[in-house]
């Protein structure tokens, strides 16, 4: 084992591997910052350039780029409330308010450190857990996945500040928006009005570009002032504060990382769900949940730690069974095959050095991203103070090009426009955009797993699946927790 760890690292110390890792990380950061494009696009575009090189160098290029997109996504979410891709969405909720309060440096540094710690925890657990994970994955079925998606919905109450009713309406709208397109279970086109384009459904990244980026730029154009007016709000934070925040909330980092690892292990759940779930658990376990959504640093640390660890988790089923944990892992699987690597139990015996190379890639790429990220943070933190008349045309143009680039279809630019106006109206009338997105993300997972559960186990599927039943009890408990806490707090106030 120690020999495999050493040879795994040695394979990454060749000039080619070092160069490829650096190129991958810088390229990943740029792609991550562009709206609509995430790790999947980054890896897919690199794939044709990976033939004929060293195995470890090729994997360093691909995985390094993918890992760098995580923090790249977070940057624009924190600075402009423009998620680089679906993964970065959870960072908008508290990262952007921090920027507006003059704490951009602190938020960026906390985000980078959170992602680093999450990535390291993910890598260590990947190394330790590969032999143990098989029975766990096999014990879970669609009913358990359904319960996990339902657990994600419990966060809705958090984002319904002001009006729970409006928050719920926004979630219903999001779920219905996700049902536009061909229903894969029944092969029924739903809400498509005969449009061939709508048969493919609404692209999630495009909807997010509209809901958050376009609507924020509309708000900025109306206000006519920078996101952060330096004459009113000065940058009061330092990077060191952010680093200390991430280290001080070490237990939150560990919890979020384990959650990310767990979600990564489950095939088909995805990092966008991971970020939201991490945010939900951070709120639910906080002693002061009312601070969230207003610039709580824990709301930045938790999603980044989860997404950092998610990569290690996603590699487990990919390596151990050849089952990709998500779209990006599917691309990595293609790279494995083109390199002549056959994933499966043999990976743990014949190719253990390669497995440890992957673990080392996660570690080194995360360290590189954090070093580069912290290095450029002072410059990045200045961007929100640029005047609205410079920001609006530049960000709007890049967002629309990003929306088009997602699928190469001009109709997506229309979708971004429609969702932009919708996002502006929702924000104005206080229908939570976050709840809309949560509904949209979880809708397909809920519907698909409900259908499969009903088909496999019948209407009383919960009674036949004890793990799912236990998870359902947990969902009910976590849903009731904020109300219980509120009730206890009110009772204390009355008693005082």
């Amino acid at each position, binding site marked *: 084992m120690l020999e495999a760890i050493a040879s795994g690292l040695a394979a990454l110390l060749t000039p080619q591997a070092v160069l490829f890792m650096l190129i991958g990380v810088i390229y990943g950061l740029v792609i991550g910052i562009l709206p609509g494009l995430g790790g999947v696009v980054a890896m897919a575009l690199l794939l044709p350039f990976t033939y004929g090189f060293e195995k470890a160098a090729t994997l360093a290029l691909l995985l390094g780029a993918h890992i760098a997109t995580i923090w790249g996504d977070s940057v624009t979410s924190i600075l402009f409330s423009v998620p680089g891709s679906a993964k970065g969405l959870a960072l908008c909720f508290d990262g952007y308010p921090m920027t507006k309060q003059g704490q951009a440096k602190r938020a960026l540094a906390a985000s980078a450190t959170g992602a680093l710690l999450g990535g390291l925890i993910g890598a260590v657990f990947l190394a330790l857990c590969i032999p143990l994970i098989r029975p766990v994955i096999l014990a879970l079925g669609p009913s358990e996945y359904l319960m996990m998606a339902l657990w994600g919905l419990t966060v809705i109450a958090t984002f319904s500040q002001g*009006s729970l009713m409006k928050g719920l309406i926004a979630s*219903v709208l999001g779920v*219905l928006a996700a049902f536009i397109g061909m229903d894969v279970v029944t092969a029924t086109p739903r809400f498509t009005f005969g449009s061939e384009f709508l048969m493919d459904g609404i692209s999630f990244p495009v909807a997010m570009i509209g809901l958050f980026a376009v609507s924020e730029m*509309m708000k900025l154009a*109306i206000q006519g002032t920078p996101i952060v007016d330096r004459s009113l709000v000065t940058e009061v934070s330092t990077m060191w504060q952010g680093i200390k925040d991430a280290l001080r909330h070490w237990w939150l980092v560990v919890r979020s990382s384990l959650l990310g690892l767990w979600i990564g292990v489950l095939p088909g759940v995805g990092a966008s769900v991971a970020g939201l779930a991490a945010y939900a658990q951070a709120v639910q376990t906080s002693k002061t949940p009312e601070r969230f959504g207003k610039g709580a640093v824990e709301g930045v640390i938790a999603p980044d730690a989860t997404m950092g660890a998610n990569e290690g988790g996603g590699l487990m089923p990919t390596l151990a069974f050849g089952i990709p944990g998500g779209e990006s892992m599917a691309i990595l699987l293609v790279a494995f095959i083109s390199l002549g690597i056959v994933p499966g139990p043999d990976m743990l015996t014949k190719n253990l050095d390669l497995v440890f190379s992957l673990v080392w890639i996660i570690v080194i790429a995360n360290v590189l991203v954090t070093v580069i990220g912290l290095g450029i943070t002072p410059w990045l933190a200045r961007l929100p103070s640029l005047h609205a008349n410079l920001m609006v045309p530049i960000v709007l143009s890049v967002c*629309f090009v990003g929306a088009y680039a997602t699928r190469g279809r001009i109709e997506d630019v229309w979708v971004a*426009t429609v969702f932009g106006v919708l996002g502006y109206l929702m924000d104005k009338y*206080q229908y939570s955009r976050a709840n809309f997105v949560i509904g949209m993300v979880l809708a397909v997972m809920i519907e698909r797993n409900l259908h499969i559960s009903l088909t496999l186990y019948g209407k009383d599927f919960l009674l036949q699946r004890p793990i799912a039943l236990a998870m359902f009890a947990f969902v009910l408990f976590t849903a009731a927790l904020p109300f219980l806490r509120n009730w206890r707090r009110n009772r204390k106030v009355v008693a005082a």
Partner: protein
Amino acid sequence: MSRRAQENLAAAALLALFAGVIWLCQDFGPRARMIPLPLAVFGIVLTVIQILWQNLRSTDELHIDMIPVQKPVAAATPGAGAGAEANAATRVTWRREAGALGIVGALLGLILVTGIIPAVFLFTGGYFVVTRQYSWRASLIYTAVLTAAVYLLFVVALQVQPYHGLLSPLVESFN
């Protein structure tokens, strides 16, 4: 338009949307409408409660039109009554909102007519010229740099096939 009227209008639009979903669901099979149909009914129930709720509360509790743009406008009309200030603020907000919508519409229109890359150049340059934030020379430099960056990143590096809009036949003949 009063705050309450705006809220009611938004809620009415939602009611119509949910009713439309229920109507469309009638064409689906039982499995395909298993979630959307009850969800739309739930949406109608929630919206009706919301309408009742917002019409039984005082206007001050309807936290809308609170975007910061109103503050300087209200402050800029000293001596006027509170009602007049609010009306002036609402009028300016509506004008600016229409302007923001126009900005987004203009970019969409330019993309559809000229294609992605020329639209970026024309929109950004036009925006700088109209707002007069920068000198024409600085505007031209910023516009050229942005257009070149977008082209290099998306078309050259990411190999995205750009949309050419109505100029498509011209581009094809040139190719």
